[in-house]
């Protein structure tokens, strides 16, 4: 049973914020641009300075080796970056059956791994960015507007793919989105970040 607990998290003007997420749950997070949603995700992944207790089961964020923490608590930022010339160089294991199944589920053919990254569209980058992140087998997914550049069909594919990953791996997620309908579809419960305060939305 992997439980993510956030106690008195504070960063910038935000907080203290406390909540917890159980396995297979998805927390929907909304709020105006600049309200600190992305910063909240970055704090959870320990990429920015912040105060408060964050723990995954018995693992405490501030005493865990940072890069091992980020393998468990994985952030998919709104814009993903690719630094090698080919797509395949970014994946730790290109023969991983889980990756191949993922490509299939998200509407790619297997030979897309040979593509040049320069030809990727932003929607493709987001979906492939998720698959790249999942190679670490994270227990918590932090998704920052992951379907912002996807059409309706691909958004739905993405949503069900994430839900399936969470239930297969007993993982959980925080899902940031401006799309209230989407959050209603995917989230177990929803919060709104406004003027530094996190409030529950029904």
């Amino acid at each position, binding site marked *: 049973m992997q439980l993510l607990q956030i106690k008195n998290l504070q960063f910038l003007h935000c907080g203290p914020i406390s909540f917890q997420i159980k396995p297979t749950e998805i927390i929907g997070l909304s709020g105006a641009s600049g309200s600190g949603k992305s910063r909240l995700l970055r704090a959870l*992944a*320990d*990429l*920015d*300075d912040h105060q408060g207790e964050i723990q995954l089961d018995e693992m405490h964020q*501030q005493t865990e080796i*940072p*890069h*091992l923490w*980020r*393998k468990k608590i*994985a*952030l*998919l*930022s709104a*814009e*993903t*970056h690719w*630094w090698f010339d080919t797509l395949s160089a970014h994946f730790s294991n290109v023969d991983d059956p889980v990756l191949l199944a993922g490509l299939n589920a998200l509407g790619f053919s297997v030979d897309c791994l040979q593509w040049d990254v320069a030809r990727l569209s932003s929607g493709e980058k987001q979906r492939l960015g998720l698959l*790249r*992140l999942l190679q*670490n087998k994270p227990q918590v997914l932090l998704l920052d507007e992951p379907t912002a550049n996807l059409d309706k069909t691909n958004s739905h594919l993405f949503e069900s793919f994430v839900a399936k990953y969470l239930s297969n791996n007993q993982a959980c997620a925080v899902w940031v989105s401006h799309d209230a309908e989407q959050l209603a579809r995917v989230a177990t419960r929803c919060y709104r970040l406004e003027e530094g305060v996190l409030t529950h939305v029904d």
Partner: protein
Amino acid sequence: MLIELSPIDLSVAALLVLLLGSLSALMKLGITRQLYIAAARTTVQLLLIGLVLKTLFASTSLAFILLISMMMISVAGWEILSRQKRKLKVGWGLGVSTGSLFISSFLITLLCLLTVIQADPWYSPQYAIPLLGMLLGNTMTGIALGMDRLIQSAWQQRPVIEQRLMLGQSADEAVSDLRREAMRAGMIPIINSMAAAGLVSLPGMMTGQILAGAAPVEAVKYQILIMFMISSGTGLGVISVLWLISKRLFDERERLCFKRLLKEE
């Protein structure tokens, strides 16, 4: 017999520098000021050192020669910082640049004086000072280039470094490619000079010795010694600087954090 240069001869060369400066100003390349200052400095500094070199070489005081060496190292360290596009925190930056010059130039010169040259006394200034000077001059270039490359590319590729951190890479892995590129940039000048030595360029020290009547083979041996010392010194210096900077780019939680390294804008 040396052909004497008249002030007019020098002004021909000076005119070329002025020309380059104006061209750079015209094309807005932004090096005019730096070029003129460097040209003025070379003139004044060489004139001054020319006047005292004989007296300096006549000195037999170890303390005095050490003092001169430390001065040379500090100036070289300062010049490395001045060549950086992004301005480093001065105290930390000076510590790193002079520290790495100390390893790469001072210790190697010392080793060479004690085990290879073995003059009497071993710190004879006519060997010690030019040797240290040649090493400093070259490693300083390598270090300045490597450092500038690493900091500039890390700054430009912040999103990529952070992306790599998000993928669970350690700080060290996340900058490994940039460090390799910076190492290459720092080593290009000395690898060029070694590869082209004798075919393209005739090293100044060796040529001078032969013209002054030294046996060619002896002069060549000295030049090889110098080249090997410079390349290993530059390599060591660049490696230590890149290692220190890539550590400094991240805080204790492996977060990319330029404010530890750079001056606040």
